[in-house]
């Protein structure tokens, strides 16, 4: 339903921080009930007036046009729940007008009800359907019939708008949860690593000090084993902290982190990783986090389902976009698994990418491996909202 996509409540904010919270608050604020717009097109002022009178009781916003040209101008600026279109008009007639309205992406699906004098008969009726009329009313119209038909479309329009709004809200909520989780992980990782790790370091030094002053072998043995326990605790701390959020990502950036993760993955699974990475560059931290998390998810899937023995990882940086491609030589993914209930992980990757105006495409043939390609536009500062909003619109548009 591309017609109203641009009307969706405020554009999606960036993944984190205040704008997002504001957006959520706005979405949740009990606003007034929105009114649907109805367009009435008729060259006869009397007829226009009568139709307006008739439909006023629906309580929606009525707009009028006295010609096809005028109607098109309005369609350019507004999204209508339904258009009542007179067939016989001087200049551009109803059919032509309808064709033009249908020709535009934004109004491609706007319902059109043709109004025609009975004299026009059946053949114009078929012509009407051919250019996209959804209904036909004979003049003079029966008030109750007109009203109830229009009411149906208004209801449909409202329901769609509500659905879209809640979809949007859910998407924003998901984005918010992702960023909250990331913040929390970062925080906990740092806390564990720095605080706990440092205390252990201090403890280790204390034990060392003690050991240098002891002569008795049994006691020395004790300090030795204490020291070993501390070492293994430090290792555990490091493992937990890195598992939550690799410090590489913050210290050295995405490219180094991807290289590191690939190496770790090979060590942990025995699946050979070949990397072809762009030279290290500083990238936006949120974009880096997103790409890194998607990358981790891809590797998790490879380890879990692919039965692969090799993964090729390629990360390219162009002026305006980042492209990550991960190909494995495993069993491949079946089409139904891409959309099945078990594919929440895949959906999560897509949603993450979407937040930055990017996309994730997965192609696989059973038996011949899977390829996941991630593209994210690289934005300059301040463009975050714009990019994300564009994507949401795109996402809402039908294909």
């Amino acid at each position: 339903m591309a017609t109203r996509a641009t009307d969706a409540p405020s554009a999606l904010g960036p993944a984190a921080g205040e704008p997002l919270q504001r957006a959520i608050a706005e979405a949740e604020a009990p606003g007034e009930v929105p009114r649907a717009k109805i367009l009435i097109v008729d060259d006869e002022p009397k007829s226009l007036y009568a139709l307006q009178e008739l439909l006023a009781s629906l309580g929606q916003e009525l707009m009028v046009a006295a010609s096809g040209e005028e109607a098109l101008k309005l369609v350019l600026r507004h999204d209508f729940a339904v258009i009542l279109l007179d067939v016989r008009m001087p200049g551009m007639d109803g059919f032509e007008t309808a064709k033009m309205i249908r020709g535009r992406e934004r109004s491609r699906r706007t319902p059109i009800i043709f109004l025609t004098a009975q004299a026009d008969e059946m053949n114009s009726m078929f012509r009407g359907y051919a250019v996209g009329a959804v209904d036909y009313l004979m003049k003079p119209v029966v008030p109750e019939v007109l009203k109830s038909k229009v009411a149906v479309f208004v209801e449909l329009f409202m329901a769609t708008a509500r659905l879209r709004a809640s979809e949007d809200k859910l998407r924003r909520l998901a984005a918010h949860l992702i960023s909250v989780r990331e913040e929390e992980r970062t925080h906990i990782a740092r806390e564990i690593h720095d605080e706990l790790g440092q205390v252990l370091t201090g403890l280790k030094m204390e034990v060392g000090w003690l050991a240098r002053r002891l002569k008795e072998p049994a006691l020395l043995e004790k300090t030795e084993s204490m020291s070993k326990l501390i070492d293994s605790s430090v290792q555990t701390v490091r493992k937990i902290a890195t598992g939550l959020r690799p410090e590489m990502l913050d210290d050295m950036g995405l490219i180094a982190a991807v290289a590191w993760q690939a190496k770790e993955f090979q060590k942990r699974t025995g699946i050979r990783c070949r990397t072809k990475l762009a030279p290290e560059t500083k990238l936006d931290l949120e974009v880096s986090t997103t790409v890194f998390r998607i990358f981790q998810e891809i590797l998790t899937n490879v380890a879990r389902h692919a039965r692969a023995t090799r993964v090729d990882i390629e990360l390219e940086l162009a002026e305006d976009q980042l492209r990550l491609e991960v190909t494995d030589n495993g069993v491949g993914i079946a089409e139904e698994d891409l959309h099945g209930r078990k594919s929440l992980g895949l959906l999560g990757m897509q949603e993450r990418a979407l937040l930055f105006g990017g996309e994730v495409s997965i192609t696989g043939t059973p038996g011949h491996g899977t390829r996941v390609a991630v593209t994210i536009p690289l934005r300059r500062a301040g463009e975050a909202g714009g990019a994300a909003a564009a994507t949401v619109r795109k996402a809402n548009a039908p294909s």
Partner: protein
Amino acid sequence: MRILIADDHPIVRHGLKQMLASDPAATVVGEATNGDEALELARKVEWDMAIFDFTMPGRSGLDLLGDIKREFPGKPVLILSMHSEDVHGSRVLRAGGSGYITKDSAPQELSTAVRKVANGGKYVSASLAEILASECSSDPQKALHEKLSDREYRVMWLLATGKQISEIAKDMGLSPSTVSTYRTRILRKLGLTSNAALVHYAVRHQLVG
């Protein structure tokens, strides 16, 4: 030997001072709790070497090291870090650090590092040396395990992590006899004769983790 130390954790500074106290030639002339303080201190007091924590609030890590080396190019800086060598080690050396030592190193190792760096040398721990060596031999074709096919590599890894032939067969969807054939081929390619040697090889080349 006038030493400057910087670490945001009192307990670590305390331990460091305690350790340095046992060396009569060493005097701690200044203590900083973050990177900016460290830089300020370095400009204020006379010092011969510095021991800095890698991760501190404010300016830290490679940025701080770079600043210090720019202003005091001749003076040695030893980096102390919670992070293992594979993450930052070689970068610190490349950025002009005289040494990189992890905080879980044995106290003796720490004193060795301090002495070495104080005398104008570079301190490289055994594990960092290993990493540097593998970085130097950047031609991956040289390592024997690079000659294994992808499938052989994974069988090798599974063997190195202690999996039985039958388990490997199931894991990879192969027959046990095929896996045995693979094993023979792997041992031949790596010039080894037993599973134990294979485990040793994998550990030494950091193929398992």
